[in-house]
């Protein structure tokens, strides 16, 4: 049941408890308990809203930043990751295999603001060896949702 609940609310966290119970063919109380348990266990970490900021009047830029760092003795990457993720403007921090170590996504009001963060805050951290900043120009698909175009039902309206 957990996997099913998660796959549904991952796409639609606003679904009602009763409806969730109905479509899964279980009792509402079981859904309530399961959700509470998963929240407590930290499996469900939050309920967010997907927003296409492009369609609003609010200016926002998103950047992906590749960071190479020197791992610290006894700490590995955890310490440096923590120093980075504590900045509220940092959206996500991933430890990555391959050519660099950390991948950061960052949101700012403008290119300038993001650049300033990278040069003032990120690059100056002692263990950071280098950074490479990529600005996102357009989001086609995010969290499994296609933003680029709207779905239209092109089927014949009645078929046997």
């Amino acid at each position, binding site marked *: 049941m957990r996997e099913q609940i998660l796959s549904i609310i991952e796409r639609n966290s606003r679904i009602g408890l009763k409806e969730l119970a109905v479509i899964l063919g279980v009792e509402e109380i079981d859904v309530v308990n399961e959700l509470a348990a998963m929240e407590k266990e930290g499996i469900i970490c939050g309920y967010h809203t997907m927003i296409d900021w492009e369609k609003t009047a609010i200016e926002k830029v998103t950047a992906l930043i590749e960071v190479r760092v020197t791992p610290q003795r006894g700490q590995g990457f955890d310490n440096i990751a923590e120093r980075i993720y504590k900045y509220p403007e940092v959206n996500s921090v991933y430890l990555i295999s391959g050519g660099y170590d950390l991948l950061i996504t960052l949101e700012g009001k403008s290119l300038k603001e993001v650049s300033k963060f990278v040069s003032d805050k990120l690059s100056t951290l002692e263990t950071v060896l280098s950074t490479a900043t990529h600005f996102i120009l357009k989001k086609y698909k995010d969290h499994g949702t296609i933003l680029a175009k709207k779905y239209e039902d092109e089927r014949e*309206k009645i078929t046997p």
Partner: protein
Amino acid sequence: MRNPLAEKVVDIRPSGIRKFFDIVSEMEDAISLGVGEPDFDTPWHIRDEGIYSLEKGRTFYTSNAGLKELKMEICHYIKRTQGIEYDYNHETIVTVGGSEAIDIALRAMINPGEEVLIPQPSYVSYEPCAILANAKPVIIELKAENEFRLTPQEVLDAVTDKTKALILPFPNNPTGAIMEKGDLEEIAKVVIEKDLFVISDEIYAELTYNGAHVSIASLPGMQERTILINGFSKSYAMTGWRLGYACGPKIIMEQMLKIHQFAIMCAPTTSQYAAVEALRNGEEDVRQMREAYNQRRRYLLYAFQEMGLECFEPFGAFYVFPCIKEFGMTSEEFADRFLREEKVAVVPGTAFGACGEGFVRISYAYSLENLKVAIGKLKEFVDRLRKEKA
């Protein structure tokens, strides 16, 4: 000028859906619950194989019976799901949809005047195809109290010494009814006792919600009497690719192949390459779509229960078949008024046979969001009809 037409064809009634289709098409903002095909796109990796086959210039005919690779995958699939072994070389034909398989099976098996048993409500093409094959269609009216399953007694009552074949349309369109192993064993007994053949249309085989589908061909003594028909349209959301298949005894398949060869040549090549990918790597897609259908099915049954609309629980396909007898109007009147007053299209049960009277088919090949809107309108409509009656 002489009459250019063949009476046999002229006498066939056009599909009952047609008339309705015309009204809906004129309505700009109508919501339809009348579609008999998946709302999902064909999974991308399958489409990609089709595209790749075009890029590679695979635009030739395949052998009449279909690509060897595909026939082998079909046989593997049937072996792993039903435990039946078919010879890909002599017992498998890839067809243009399940529909072609139904047509050529009837044409290959039936002599003029021989009878074919057709349980209804069921898909609209069995009866016309039987007529075109010079068979005499004998309708078996399935009953709501049996959850629209076929009973051995119903077969016995319809059998004469001219009966040659039984069409077995389960999981069923439009009722959503299924036949479980126990039900099929009873039917198989009668089939063997009366020396009949079965044309088993299992196009919805992957869409069952209370356990895996069982084919009648998997029962003892039945493989040699059954043409098993399936395809890619419903399970892999591939309706437009027009691809199905038939498996059966060599002696029948050889004759079916002749008709297929002369009438069709071969099924579309692009579709065949895509279908190989579907059978090799499509199981997870099918599972996900099945789960989505099942969620919608549960939602609809719950909504019907809430509004007090009588409906047996269907365990197959993507249709529910609620009873509308309480409103004292025919299925067609109900569907017509629902469309005009609430702009929602459902299909009258009578489109699938006279015994569909008193029922309408509602498809759940729509997203939950769309279903919710439509069901909200159904509730208003039902409430209004009840008030009118009171």
